[in-house]
C-alpha cells in the first residue's frame, strides 16, 4: 500500500539541551542559568530544554513544575520534557504538558539505540565578520578564514579555525565535554567547552598569538600547545 499524501506525523531528530535539576526551589539555580545564558544570549534564546531529574528527590507535584517553568521562562528557556524521572515525577510532569523524553543515560536498561552516523563537519571558507554568528548543531565547525573580534562560532562538536581566531568559540555547546577548540592563531575573546568558559583576559599571554588547542581537563579549560610542525 503506497501513501499518496504525506503523513501528518513524521520522524524528526533534534538536539536538545538538558538542564539538570537537583532542587527546583534552589535560589542559586536561577542565577546560574541566567549567567550561562548571558554568555551567548542569541544561542540560548527560547531554546527548548529537557529537565533531567535523576538528582531530584522532589518535583512530585504539578505546582513544582509550574514554578520551574516560570523560572526557566525568565531565562528564555522553554522546558519541553523530562528525562530520568520517577513514576510520580512523570505523572506530575504530564499534568503540565511536559513529555517524557528518552534520555541517553536512563535509569532503566533499554535496548541500545542504533549508532547514528557522525554528521559531516560544516566548513566555512569566507571570513566570519564581527557580529556574525554560526551554529553547527550536532557536529563540528571548520573555518578556513579569519574570525573577527565580535563574531561567534558555536558547535555541539569541535571547532577548528585554520586562521586567526579573534572572536568567541563555544564548543561542546550541547554538553559534550570532549569537544575541543583548535586555532592556528589563537587570539579568542572567549572560549567555552560544555559550559565552562575562559575570557581572553584570563588567558596567559604566552598562549596567545600562535597555534593552540583548548580542551576540558579535570573540569577546567586548559590551553594546550597547538601541534608540532612537520
Amino acid at each position, binding site marked *: 500500500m503506497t501513501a499518496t499524501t504525506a503523513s501528518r506525523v513524521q520522524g524528526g531528530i533534534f538536539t536538545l539541551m538538558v538542564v539538570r535539576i537537583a532542587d527546583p526551589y534552589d535560589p542559586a539555580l536561577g542565577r546560574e542559568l541566567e549567567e550561562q545564558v548571558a554568555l551567548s544570549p542569541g544561542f540560548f534564546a527560547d531554546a527548548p530544554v529537557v529537565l533531567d531529574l535523576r538528582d531530584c528527590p522532589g518535583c512530585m507535584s504539578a505546582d513544582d513544575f509550574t514554578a520551574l517553568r516560570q523560572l526557566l521562562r525568565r531565562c528564555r528557556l522553554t522546558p519541553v520534557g523530562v528525562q530520568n524521572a520517577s513514576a510520580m515525577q512523570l505523572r506530575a510532569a504530564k499534568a503540565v504538558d511536559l513529555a517524557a523524553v528518552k534520555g541517553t543515560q536512563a535509569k532503566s536498561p533499554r535496548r541500545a539505540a542504533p549508532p547514528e552516523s557522525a554528521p559531516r563537519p560544516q566548513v566555512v571558507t*569566507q*571570513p566570519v*565578520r*564581527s*557580529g*556574525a554568528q554560526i551554529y553547527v548543531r550536532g557536529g563540528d565547525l571548520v573555518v578556513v*578564514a*579569519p574570525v*573577527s*573580534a*565580535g*563574531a561567534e562560532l558555536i558547535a555541539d562538536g569541535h571547532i577548528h579555525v585554520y586562521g*586567526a581566531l*579573534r572572536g568567541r568559540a563555544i564548543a561542546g555547546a550541547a554538553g559534550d565535554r570532549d569537544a575541543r577548540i583548535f586555532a592556528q592563531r589563537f587570539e579568542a575573546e572567549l572560549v567555552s567547552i560544555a559550559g565552562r568558559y575562559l575570557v581572553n583576559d584570563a588567558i596567559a599571554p604566552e598562549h596567545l598569538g600562535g597555534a593552540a588547542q583548548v580542551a576540558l581537563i579535570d573540569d577546567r579549560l586548559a590551553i594546550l600547545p597547538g601541534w608540532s610542525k612537520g
Partner: protein
Amino acid sequence: MGKTTTSAAFAAGLALRGHKTVVIDFDVGLRNLDLVMGCERRVVFDFINVINGDATLNQALIRDKRIDSLYIFPTSQTRDKEALKREGVDWVMRELRNDFEYVICDSPAGIEHGALTALYHADAAIIVTNPEVSSVRDSDRIIGILAARSRRAEKRESPVEEHLLLTRYSPERVKKGEMLSVDDVKEILSLPLLGIIPESPTVLRASNTGIPVILDAESPAGRAYEDAVARFVGEQREMRFSLPERRSFLRGWFGRAAT
C-alpha cells in the same frame, strides 16, 4: 570618517572621466552631501519629495556647475529616515540606473534603517575606514551586513563587489605606533585595498568651500582619490601615501618655493 567626502570625490572623479554620474544623499535629516558638493543653495526638491510623489526625479536632480556629467540628488533635512520607504527607494534606484552610468549612494553612519536602505541596491561597495581600532571593527560589521542584507545577497545573485578605502592615513603616526598600519587593517578586514587617502587639511577646506577635494590639484588627498577612482574602473596605479614623506635634499635647502 570620510563617507561623504569619498562619495563626492568618487562622483566627481567618475564624471570627470566622462561617465554620467549621480550621487545620492541617504542621510535623511542630517544631510550634508549638498554642502560638500557646493549646491546647498540650489536645493528645491529632494529624495523624500520624489518618493512621496510631490516632485519628479528631474525636478529634484541638481546638475553640477563645474562638471558636465555630474548630478546630485539631495535629501530632506526636515524629515527622518523612516521616510525612506522601500518601494519608493526601489523605484528611484530603477529610474536612476536607466539614466546614469554610475549611481553613488552616500550612506549614513550606523547599521539601522538608513544605512540598510542605502546599501540594499549596491552592486559595489566602498567601505571607508580610518586606521584605528573602533573604525576597523565597525567596518568589519558593515562588511558582514553587506554580505547578508543586500539585494544581491537576498536574491542569491553574485555578491556585492567589496573595496576597502583607508582614509585619514598618517604614516608618521603609524610609525609612532599611534595608528594601525595598512597591513594591520588589511589583515583584520581581509579585503582588497582600493586606496589610501592621506590625512590632509585640504579635505576640510574642500568641504567648507563646497568643492570636492578631487578637484583640488594641490591636494595629496585629491590625488589619492584620483588614484582610487582609477583603480575602481580597472586601471593599475601604484599605492602612494603609505610611507612617511621623505624630504629631498634640495627641498630641504630651498623650501617649497623652488618647486
